[in-house]
Structures are given as C-alpha cells and as structure tokens.
C-alpha cells in the first residue's frame, strides 16, 4: 500500500464531541470511501487540539490546514480539497480580523503561535487510543532512559528542573519525591490527582483525553524513583472519555510491557489502576483524596499531621501529583533538567496550562511559559474581548482564586506573582470578564460554589462561606447594609486564618480581591441601590 499522503486529524476532545465531532468523523470516513480517497488520506481521531471555541476542529497534515466549526455538511468539500490542484475550503479557515485574511495553517493562527505547547505537544496530534502514535512521537523513551538511571539521579534531575506541582499549591515536585523515597518501607504508592472539580476547568481532562500515555509514563518514572509498585489514577466520574482513554492506554501499555512485571526487561514492576472519584471538589485535596481511595468519606485532615509522603494511602509513603505534573516528567527526563529550567521565571519553571474561558474572543486550552504576561494571554492568544467591549477583570485559579483588574495586566503569570496579587495559579482556570460583568455577582457565584462544596467538617468554612454567600446575595438583591463590606472582610479574614484545609483558607479570595480592586461596585450596590454593570436587576 502506498504511504498515505495526508492525515485528517479530527479533534475528539470533549468540547468538539459535544459539537458533533463523533458523527463528523463517521461522515468523513464514509465519504472517504465513497470518493475512493482511502489511498490518499487516512483519518485519525485525536484529543483536544485546544481551540475549543472554534470546534469541531479538523486539521489536515502535513500542511497543518486548519478547519474550524466543521459540520457534516462540509465533509464532501473537505475531501474534495484533497485532490491535486483543488482549492482549500476557505469558509472553514480561521479568519484573522486583524489582517483581514483567512489563515491556512494553524501554526500561523495567533491563538497557537504565541503558545509553547510542551505538555500539550501531543494533544490534538496523536491518536490517544493508539500507543504506536505515542511511540512514534517519542513516547516511553524517557522511561527507557529512566530505568537505566539510578532512582536518586532521577530525583536529582526533577529537583534541578525546578518543576513545581501544577495541582495548585506549587510544591517542588523533586522534593516531594525525595521525601517519599527516603520514607522507610517497601510498600509505597503513586497517586495521580485528576479530580479537577473546579467549575469550567478542563486542563487535566484534556491531557488525560489527549495524551494519556504521557501521564502514565510520568507515573511509572515516579514509581521507579521512589520505589513504588502501584499507582492510582484518580479521575472524576464525570469524565467518561478521560476514563475510557486512560483505560485503553493502560491496557496497551501493559500489552507492550511498559506496565506490569519486569518493565522493559528491568527488575522493576509497576502497574496503574483507575479510581473513579465521586466528583466532590474537596476530594481533590490530597488527604481527602487518599481517604476517598480508601473507601471513606473524603474529608481533609488537619495540620499538623505527617506528610502524605510519610503516611499516605493505607498509611504508606505516597507521592500525590497532578495530571500535568506527571505529564511534564517525560519531557524533563528526555531533555534534561537544564533544558526545562531554562524556561519560565526564577521561581516558576516550565509552562503553565490554562483553560481560557469567559469574555474572550478565542477560548480554549492553552499552554504558555511561566512568566508570560496576563495581557499576552488575554489579548494575543485570547484575541481580546469580543464585541469591542472593555476588559474588566480576569479570575485565575478556579473558584478560590481572585479577580485581577486591568492595572494588573502586565503582571507575569507565575505561582508567586498571582498569590501576592490576591489570586493563585490553582489548577489552571482563567476566566476573562468584560465591562458588563458585575464583580459582586461574580464573587457571589464563586462563593455559591465553595459553600456548597465545603465538606462541612470545620465551622469557619461550613458556616462562614454560607454567611458570605448570603451577604453577597442580599447585596445584589438590593438589600445590602452599610456595615456589609467590613463584615465580609472580617469574615473573610477569619475563614482564611482558621479553616482546616485550603478550600476554606482560599474560599474568601474572590470576595476579598473584588473588594480590594472593585470596592466602588460594592458601595454602589449597598449605598445607591445601583449595579454599575447593569447585571443585578434588583439594583437599577
């Protein structure tokens, strides 16, 4: 059979699937046969390509021709365009409103070329359900290399890389591994945190759906580094495609000897099991997650307590890392710590991955080097605010992050800058808000989420977040009282200081940051019965 000339990549990320990408792919396959083009092109399904807003997406390689918002009706034209001399389907190309021209290849679309897709290198490119695709892309080379290294050497490499956990807290990954490797005992565990309970976030899901083997490879290397033989991938129930593709990937990795006994002829044994979480936000917290795998109610445990690296799952030393943290490991092992550490800022190395959503022209899954300015993310990659509206704020870090105003757009995005501005990196949510957004209403929205997701065990978080929500709710309904801002500040401070876990300790952030940067909006609601953004209908 002649070498296929073209590959038609059909994005099957959750976003594109909900736009009909499944049927689209079937139609493409049927039409390919009908037009007798099977010898010319093959169809491949991939994970999330990133530009979810323009989905369903179709990419034709090797040129990278980029078709957006594709429907089944476009199938005959797309296939016709593969014939020699035939024109591209111009109406499906991305139209750049700055240069007023359609752009042919996705490499030239601003949404993509301003990014550095390292962790996402395979997402939207390989078929996640075919291990050969991953191998062709250099997959499991890092594992082979790692197995020839000493565990201490791997830990040193990860430490030197400066990689910090991408699940929220930004804890140095190498130090975590070192602590677990030094904890005594023959039985240790590796856990991958794929709970991702933040509303609107889809970074971890996309990595699991688009490149599950990179996560598995990272987990195996972690296992070898600390001396663990068993790993759990905790994935939330609501992620059926992620669970399915990870399951397929694990099975294929076992068949090829990357998982199981004597991996690649070494003496090292390791296997991974999927644990489907019940979908509580708080179960993403490390101690709650461990309890949840043990079959108990997921409730965080108070400090001081032994670290999970000493007493973790079933009481054994455990390394718990985020999905994206593991996906970084093969990169570091393959390219070396220095290569990785050359990217990013002094204290935040590598890249950050965000689900860019809200009032932004180009929403989707993006990856940028740490230290990229908020402005570049929102205006260059995100294409700015739609409809000529003005930018008002950006919220990072999920439901417990803060809202940052226009004055902070030049701020570099890294762990420490975001925290000092009253927000956080979190697991990678980024919501853009325009002039029509009411900041009190936004704070209320996030507090509504956290107060419902509070596990209920400690008083400040259980009652305090509910009380903050009730106050915000009455403010937007025109029933705010003169002392309410002070009361919110008092409560917020107390909840942050005294809550048991990081859910409560960060829950007041949306309120405290909006009071810090948009206090006048609170005052307008309370004292003038007026919503400056015109959102709260009770305040006119």
């Amino acid at each position, binding site marked *: 059979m002649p070498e296929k000339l073209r590959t038609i990549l059909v994005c099957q990320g959750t976003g594109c699937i909900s736009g009909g990408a499944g049927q689209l792919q079937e139609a493409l396959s049927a039409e390919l046969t009908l037009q007798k083009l099977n010898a010319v092109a093959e169809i491949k399904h991939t994970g999330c390509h990133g530009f979810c807003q323009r989905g369903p997406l179709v990419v034709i390689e090797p040129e990278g021709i980029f078709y957006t918002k594709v429907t089944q009706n476009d199938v005959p034209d797309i296939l016709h365009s593969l014939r020699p001399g035939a024109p591209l389907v111009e109406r499906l190309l991305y139209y750049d409103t700055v240069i007023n021209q359609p752009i042919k290849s996705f490499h030239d679309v601003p949404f993509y070329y301003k990014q550095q897709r390292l962790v996402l290198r395979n997402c939207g490119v390989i078929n996640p359900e075919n291990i050969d695709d991953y191998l062709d892309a250099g997959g499991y080379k890092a594992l082979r290399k790692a197995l020839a290294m000493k565990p201490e050497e791997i830990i040193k490499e990860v430490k030197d890389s400066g990689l910090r956990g991408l699940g929220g807290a930004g804890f140095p990954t190498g130090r975590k591994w070192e602590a677990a490797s030094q904890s005594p005992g023959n039985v240790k565990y590796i856990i991958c945190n794929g709970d991702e309970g933040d509303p609107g976030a889809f970074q971890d899901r996309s990595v699991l759906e688009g490149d599950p083997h990179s996560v598995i490879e990272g987990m195996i290397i972690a296992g070898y580094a600390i001396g663990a033989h068993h790993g759990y991938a905790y994935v939330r129930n609501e992620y059926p495609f992620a669970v399915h593709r990870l399951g397929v990937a694990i099975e294929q990795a076992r068949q090829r000897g990357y998982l199981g006994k004597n991996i690649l002829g070494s003496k090292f044994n390791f296997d991974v099991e999927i644990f489907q979480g019940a979908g509580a936000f708080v179960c993403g917290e490390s101690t709650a997650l461990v309890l949840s795998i043990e079959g108990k109610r997921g*409730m965080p445990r*108070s400090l001081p307590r032994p670290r999970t690296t000493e007493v973790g799952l079933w009481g054994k030393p455990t390394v718990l890392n985020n999905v994206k943290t593991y996906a970084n490991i093969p990169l570091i092992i393959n390219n070396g710590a220095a290569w990785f550490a050359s990217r990013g800022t002094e204290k935040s190395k590598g890249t950050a991955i965000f689900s860019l959503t809200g009032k932004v022209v180009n929403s989707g899954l993006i990856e940028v080097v740490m230290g990229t300015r908020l402005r570049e993310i929102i205006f260059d990659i995100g294409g700015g605010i739609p409809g000529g509206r003005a930018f008002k704020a950006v919220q990072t870090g999920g439901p417990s992050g803060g809202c940052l105003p226009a004055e902070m757009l030049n701020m570099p995005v890294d762990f420490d800058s975001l925290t000092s501005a009253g927000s956080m990196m979190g697991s990678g949510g980024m919501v853009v808000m325009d002039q029509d957004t009411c900041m009190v209403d936004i704070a209320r929205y996030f507090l509504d989420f956290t107060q419902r997701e*509070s596990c*209920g*065990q*400690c008083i400040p978080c259980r009652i305090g977040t509910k009380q903050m929500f009730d106050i915000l709710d009455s403010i937007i309904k025109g029933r705010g009282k003169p002392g309410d801002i002070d009361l919110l500040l008092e409560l917020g401070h*107390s909840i942050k*200081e005294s809550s048991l876990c990081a859910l409560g300790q960060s829950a007041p952030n949306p309120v405290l940051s909006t009071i810090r940067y948009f206090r006048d909006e609170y005052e307008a609601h309370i004292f003038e019965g007026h919503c400056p953004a015109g959102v709260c209908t009770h305040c006119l």
Partner: protein
Amino acid sequence: MSKLTINIDGKEVQAKSGDTILETALAAGKYIPHLCYCPGLKPEALCRLCLVEMADGELITSCRVPVVRGMVIKTKSPAIDRAVRPTVELLIKYHHERCAGCPASGHCELQTVMSHLKIDRKRVRRLRPPPAKRPIDVMNRCFDYDPNRCILCGICIRTCEAIHGESLLYYIGRGHETKVAFYGDEKKCETCLKCVERCPVGTLLAKNLIEAK
C-alpha cells in the same frame, strides 16, 4: 512520663511530654476555647476554636500539637481574636435553639466558650439569619438527634468508632447542610449511649429525658 515546662501567656506551666498544648493548658487551669476536643479521643481540630499563637506569630490548633520543652505560646492575642471570634458568632447565629429549656444548659460547652469570649450579641445580630430549621431525627430507639443544635464536633462519631471499632454514625450532606446520621445503621446500635453522654451541647438527647421535659 517525663516532665517539662512550657510558657503559656507569660507563666511557666508544668507539662507531661506527649500531652498536647490544649491538655497542658486545661490541666493548669488555663482555659482555651474548644468544642471538638474530648479526652481520650483522637483530636481532629474540626472546630478551629483552640487556636493559639506561637512565638513566631503562627496560629496553630492547640489540640493537635504536642508540647515541646521551652515552647512559648499565647492563648489571647488580637490575631487569635480576629480568627476565632467570628467563628463563634457564626455558630451562635446558626444555633437555632434558645438555652432556656435546653437539657444541656448549665453544662454546655458552647455556653462556656461564649462566656469566656464575652460574645457581644450586637455583633451576632449583624449576621444574616440561618436557613430554616430542620426536623429532629428520631430514628434511634434510645435517643434523638437535633440538627439545629448540632455543632458537628464529631465527638459522637469518634466515640462510636472508639468503642465499636467502626462508627455507626456518619457525616452526611455537604456544606451547611452537613449533619450526623445513622445512615441505616440504627438497628446495629448497642445503645451504650456513650455518644449521648459525651455530646458537648444538647444535640443528642436520650429519649426519656425529652419526655420528662
């Protein structure tokens, strides 16, 4: 057990190694507010009221921290007050029942906390009202559970666990709707009533007590 001294609020206090700061303070007659601590049970630091200030200014839950020779702690400070007072005020606001007529009145831990902190009713009145009252759970043949009085200290759950290996009582629900329930295990209850005995407020009440009222 070896003896050591620590400094609480400027006074040297004798402590047994292995004891927690809270235990040491209480033994020395120095009260620190607490609701979920119960002698003999594993401290879980759920109520967050026993915060004390360490020499470096850090606030820690004294029920979970063992004493260390030479430790210097404060049980009262502006930082502690800012963290703890709003919590107690919220708890009172959400405590639906009045003390008059409550069988626990007079030996209620919440009353002790309130009077220790000299809770100002005016500040409590600033808060928004709690959600509607919830029905009393009368499932158990020997005692009832009143969610409107419950502070969710978890002492009943930990007690049941300590005595019977696995607790028949569980937390159910999330957020402010969280409560304690048998979850279908009430028939297995051996009615030792230890949980009722240890309830620091008037949430778990033996049935004859209620009828006698």
